């Protein structure tokens, strides 16, 4: 079986190089990172999501517009004021190994996620508001909650909630499952070569759109330039993780196309709000905000693929307030405010940031140029990731400004806001206010989405008034697609579900 398939794959790759298409259509995707492990409970990597979203399904699925759609559950109800969620499951679905999907599989999945196995991975903590899952009949389950969780339905489309086959895992064991996953999704897992590639084949019985292509190959190529060269040479059909600086090159190539979509990730500079930093003064923090022309940064370093932001969220985030106005770019006013605050011309400040991201490295350098325009002498301090994340930020040992970039997969402002503004959180080493803490807790305890949205907007407004950060931009996720690939519509959450993509004959 395996031998047979690899010949098929080899033929497919050859066919995409040579002009006339063979019987087999194989779509090849190149991405930077190899997630190394295919078990849903063991990962939080976007690189996992792009591949494994083709292998697994959750009870619900989030579409390209971030709306929830039925997945393995046909319908659901919220009962007992959010303390119980009832799901009606889809009938007649089976896992890739032939095992039937039913209520037993759902219960097994969540017992495993919330139990010992899940405890060894990073996903469990997202689902701790679930108390237990109860089987009502073969195709009905109840989720009993430990406390209401307004974001739980969205989270059920998340990595950790992907439904796994009970008999298969019990039979082959956890370690084998990590390397040979089985799900219900549009593609079946075939083979995986660590550090190189993973091969999937179409699931002809898929309940939600049988794949257009016969197989998928995900190749893991670390170096940006190499990945681009593979795309240019025709060995790759879709390239993920396109560097912004490569966008003009791809745009000018006749046979390649750039496809981009707003992503969850925002970039900002957090400000040190305690003495002796000059940024302890609110006027200075406002002045720093006014000194930056965000659109110019986006045009220069993101190839225009981003949106300026005034709070720590993009337009797609729940809690985004289109009415809110940020600090406009106004170097004159910034200089006046600095003078009023008694900051002398030529005063020195430093930006701490994570070394290794070439785009942000350029942005940071350009920021010092904008600060120089208002009379500040700002230096840069690139820091190795581990040191930055473990020693500098949580222990409050930063300079006046430090990088904060975050992307909550749920697209719910709660995720970012809580860990940047709530007392004692890792990304809030200098504290905010009692009022802020109260608001953050209030929205977490509410299940009324309209009320939550209002509170989240209030939080963003308060953070803006206190200028805790200099929000910069919301980055788009950029893909490059070769001619002949049709129907590729990436989702904002960076999960690539490729059953509707086809390869045309060329």
């Amino acid at each position: 079986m395996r031998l047979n398939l690899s010949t098929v794959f080899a033929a497919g790759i050859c066919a995409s190089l040579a002009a006339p298409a063979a019987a087999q259509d194989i779509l090849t995707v190149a991405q930077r990172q190899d997630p190394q492990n295919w078990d849903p409970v063991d990962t939080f990597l976007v690189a996992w999501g792009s591949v494994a979203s083709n292998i697994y399904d959750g009870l619900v699925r989030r579409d390209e517009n971030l709306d929830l759609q039925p997945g393995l559950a046909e319908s659901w109800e919220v009962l007992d004021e959010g303390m119980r969620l009832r799901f009606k499951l889809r009938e007649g679905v089976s896992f890739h190994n032939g095992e039937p999907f039913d209520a037993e599989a759902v219960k097994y999945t969540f017992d495993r996620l919330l139990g010992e196995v899940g405890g060894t991975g990073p996903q469990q903590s997202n689902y701790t508001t679930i108390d237990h899952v109860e089987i009502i009949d073969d195709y009905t389950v109840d989720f009993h909650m430990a406390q209401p969780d307004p974001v739980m339905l969205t989270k059920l489309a998340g990595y950790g909630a992907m439904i796994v086959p009970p008999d298969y895992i019990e039979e082959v064991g956890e370690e084998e499952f990590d390397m040979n996953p089985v799900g219900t999704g549009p593609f079946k897992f075939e083979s995986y070569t660590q550090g190189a590639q993973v091969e999937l084949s179409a699931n002809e019985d898929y309940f939600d759109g049988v794949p257009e292509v016969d197989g998928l190959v995900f190749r893991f190529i670390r170096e940006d330039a190499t990945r681009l060269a593979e795309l240019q040479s025709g060995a790759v059909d879709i390239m993920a993780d396109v560097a912004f600086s490569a966008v003009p090159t791809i745009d000018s190539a006749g046979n390649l196309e750039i496809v981009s979509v707003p992503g969850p990730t925002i970039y900002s500079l957090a400000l040190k709000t305690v003495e002796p930093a000059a940024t302890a003064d609110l006027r200075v923090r406002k002045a720093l905000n006014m000194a930056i022309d965000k659109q110019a940064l986006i045009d220069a370093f993101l190839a225009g693929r981003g949106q300026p932001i005034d709070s720590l969220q993009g337009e797609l985030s729940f809690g985004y307030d289109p009415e809110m106005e940020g600090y406009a770019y106004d170097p004159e006013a910034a200089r006046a405010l600095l003078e009023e605050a008694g900051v002398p011309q030529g005063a020195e400040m430093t930006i701490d940031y994570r070394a290794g991201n070439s785009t942000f490295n350029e942005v940071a350098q350009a920021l010092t140029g904008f600060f120089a325009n208002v009379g500040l002498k700002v230096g840069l301090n690139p820091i190795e990731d581990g040191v930055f994340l473990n020693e500098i930020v949580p222990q409050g040992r930063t300079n006046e400004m430090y990088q904060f970039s975050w992307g909550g997969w749920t697209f719910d402002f709660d995720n970012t806001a809580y860990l940047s503004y709530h007392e004692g959180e890792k990304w809030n080493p200098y504290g905010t206010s009692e009022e802020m803490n109260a608001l953050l807790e209030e929205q977490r305890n509410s299940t009324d989405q309209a009320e939550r949205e209002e509170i989240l907007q209030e939080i963003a407004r308060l953070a803006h008034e206190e200028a805790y950060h200099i929000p910069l931009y919301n980055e788009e996720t950029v893909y490059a697609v070769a001619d002949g690939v049709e129907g590729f519509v990436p989702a904002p959450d960076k999960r690539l579900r490729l059953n509707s993509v086809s390869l045309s004959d060329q």
Partner: protein
Amino acid sequence: MRAFRSFEFTAGLILTGIMGLAVILSPLLFPGGGMGQDLVARLTPPLTSAEYPLGTDPLGRDILARVVVGGRISFFVGIVSALGAVVIGTVIGLFAGYYRGPWDMFLMRFADIQLALPFILLAMTVIAIIGPGLDRIIILMIVAQWVQYARLIRGSVLSLRQSEYVQAAKSYGLGDLRILFVHILPNAMGPLVILGTLNVANNILLESSLTFLGLGIDPLIPSWGGMLADGRNYIQTAPWVTIFPGLAIMMTVLGLNLLGDWLRDRLDPLGQTK
């Protein structure tokens, strides 16, 4: 002078001279230090604007100014670290070779261990722990290179200490220090000078590599390795961002190597006979 007829000498002197002169004059030529940004004029191609003859980089900074000013850092790192390593290595080598005994044993085994460590790996580890910086790069290079000089000098001293003139000096009752520095050192200097010159070139390359890897100096300060790193992502659309600092590195290193070769021919007794 016969020297001027040597191709190595002429070419080496011209290349190193041009770069050296530009570097020495850089504060007069480019008082702004190549730090000024002009986002509107980013990635201007060379020879298209009078203001930026060699074009601009992704932040709209003048590449000509940055190449020249960046050379200051490169020369400084190259020369200071080579000098430091020469001085430390020489002193250790002299004493180890002259006194022999357990200290010699200890120092040379230590040197062997040191030689077994790959430099870039060592540098990456140390910098990940203590953070990047110009001073740290220089210290790292000295730490990595003193061994070569120490072993070189020790070898010469081992043979020289047996020679008749040293024995004669001893029998006159001269102090050890005087014998080491006045009588032995000058006779062991030849290979040292050659190695030193070649290592200046080597160090310039190392500094560029480390800065390219993001382990070197402040990204705002122009340096050749940093400029190469800045241009890496633009190599297809704006190759000039990498070409000019690359050329500068090549000219300097080539020039220094030619000079080093010429010196070897002049100072190496075997080379002179040809």
